């Protein structure tokens, strides 16, 4: 938290497209953001907004073809990840940056034991022998709170519950003590009580290992209590970026505003209908030339349909991409 000046990761003008028989999918459309050491950054957006593709692009996990990273750089410390060769990247992935995926049911290999899967990563990256790797694997399982770790090494994924599998995934991601952990909707497939367990675990590990975290989610509630900064994505663009308290208290972009309004609250009595956003997200097969939210926005002006607004500072540490000034919006419909 104290080294704010030197970003750990600096992404600039990243554009990712997919060429499919129906045309070109404009998945990520020139996004830039930076991440400081020790920070927890939340990336929030609905399905298809490009939040996962952004992270997969940075990690070079996009299948090329059909995927294509058109432009962009991702500086991690002083290396541009996009320019690294596959061979160079192999040392990087898992070692410096690790990822936890959404679905713990499908991201573990069902025919290998937990022990085999954990030691594989360890042997590859740390060049240690099987015996040492097993010892380390047990330590890792204990770290993520799996009871009776030594006897669990021989178990297969189907013998674990969803929450336990996600713990194993986290153990695997942590195996080489990465500086950056990217968590892609790690709790979406889990029940709330298990979700609370996993969040608690990650927060505990963050403190213990001083990790930098990118937490991708569609749930504004999950990240409210844990993130330092939040990026809101829509149709492949970053539409707003702010410190967490600022974002929830003073959302600037009409989309962020509507998204927060669409959430019911468990801690409050019902006082209104939910604010629904009319329509659906835009077709990503069409090249975006205007504001992506224009068709669903209550405050739309002609300029919104003609030109895409840039992401600019509207306050210190608070960026948004909207042509309409918030002061002018009170006159419009709510």
């Amino acid at each position: 938290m104290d080294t704010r000046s030197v970003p750990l990761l600096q992404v600039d003008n990243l554009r990712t497209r997919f060429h499919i028989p129906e045309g070109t999918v404009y998945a990520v459309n020139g996004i830039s953001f930076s991440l400081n050491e020790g920070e927890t950054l939340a990336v929030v957006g609905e399905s298809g907004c490009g939040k996962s593709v952004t992270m997969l692009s940075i990690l070079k996990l996009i299948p090329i073809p059909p995927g294509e990273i058109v432009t962009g750089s991702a500086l991690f410390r002083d290396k541009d990840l996009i320019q690294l060769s596959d061979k160079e990247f192999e040392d990087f992935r898992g070692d410096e940056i690790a990822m936890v995926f959404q679905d713990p049911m499908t991201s573990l290999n069902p025919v290998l034991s937990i022990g085999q899967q954990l030691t594989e990563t360890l042997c590859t990256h740390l060049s240690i022998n099987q015996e040492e790797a097993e010892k380390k694997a047990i330590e890792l399982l204990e770290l993520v709170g799996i009871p009776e770790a030594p006897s669990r090494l021989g178990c297969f994924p189907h013998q674990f519950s969803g929450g336990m599998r996600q713990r194993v995934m986290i153990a695997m991601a942590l195996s080489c003590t990465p500086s950056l952990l990217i968590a892609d909707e790690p709790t979406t497939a889990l029940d709330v009580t298990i979700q609370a367990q996993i969040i608690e675990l990650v927060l505990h590990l963050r403190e213990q290992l001083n990790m930098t975290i990118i937490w991708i989610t569609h749930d504004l509630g999950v990240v409210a209590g844990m993130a330092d900064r939040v990026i809101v994505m829509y149709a492949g663009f970053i539409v707003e970026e702010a410190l967490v308290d600022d974002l929830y208290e003073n959302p600037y972009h009409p989309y962020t505003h509507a998204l927060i309004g669409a959430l019911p609250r468990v801690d409050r009595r019902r006082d209104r209908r939910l604010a629904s956003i009319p329509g659906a997200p835009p077709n990503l097969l069409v090249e975006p030339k205007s504001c992506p939210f224009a068709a669903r926005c209550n405050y739309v002006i002609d300029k919104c349909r003609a030109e895409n607004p840039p992401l600019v500072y509207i306050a210190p540490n608070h960026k948004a991409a909207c042509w309409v000034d918030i002061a002018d919006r009170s006159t419009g419909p709510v």
Partner: protein
Amino acid sequence: MMTESQPLVVVENLKKHFAVSSGLVFKQKKGSVRAVDGISFSIAKGETLGLVGESGCGKTTAGRTILNLYTPTEGKIMIEGEEWSPKNKKKLKEFRRKTAMIFQDPYASLNPRWTVSAIVSEPLRVHKLFKTEKERAQRVKDLLNLVGLSSRLINRFPHEFSGGQRQRIGVARALASDPLFIVCDEPISALDVSIQAQVVNLLEDLQDQFGLTYLFIAHDLSMVRHICDRVAVMYLGVIVELGERNEVYENPIHPYTKALLSAVPIPDPKRDRERRRIILSGDVPSPINPPSGCRFHPRCPVMKEPCEGETPVWQEASPGHWVACHCCVCDE
């Protein structure tokens, strides 16, 4: 909002057990999954009852058994004072007309080879509700307009629609036979936040317009508080707490309800950080051999002696607020 005089739906001691067998040729019965193990509640006309719980607690099975999609192992289901009976085929069909279901997955619950018109008119055909094809087509168009879809889309196929639109088609189908009672089985959990609000508002509008009665099955406790009049909390096949929504959310009694509510994230950073979460250890046990006594006792943070051996009594803690827990007895 509640008229307790004549409940529309009454469920009494409903049980649904599934046999578990092993062996390929000579099947041996090994035991049974007690998915729903004796639940009772009633729903007044025009009311929405929320049924919440974690995956595997039996909430979906409960919903399906109430509509006789599964034959109940034991128990009674009454609608408008008349008992469901799986044996009386003719009567069963009449009951089916009065009830409907909205399914969780808008992708799997619509036949991909059927047009919207065929999907929405199926209940009309099954129950022979309109004499001519023309009348039926008109009814389908009206239904589509009702759920906010253009009636021009009548000959399209499900794959041409987005998730939210598909769920609207599912709602239109559920409304086709003019039902009194609709079981909504996680109707919004597969949808994005902004689309969830659209579907929830639609369900509320339809309830106001037609006086519908809902059983709203969900795991999203925030949404349940928003949409439901009363809430029932299920754990491993039994209801552990039931009451008016604000009462349950503001004064939860059962330790499971407390833990569940404390685990729900609040989209407000300051409040979320201030909150003390009750973290339950472990996972939900298997419903094949559920724990003895109170089923929650192995995970309960305030477990006391009687919890292990004795099944807690279902009792009214305050008017309309029911709970099954030994600890709230100890407190008194």
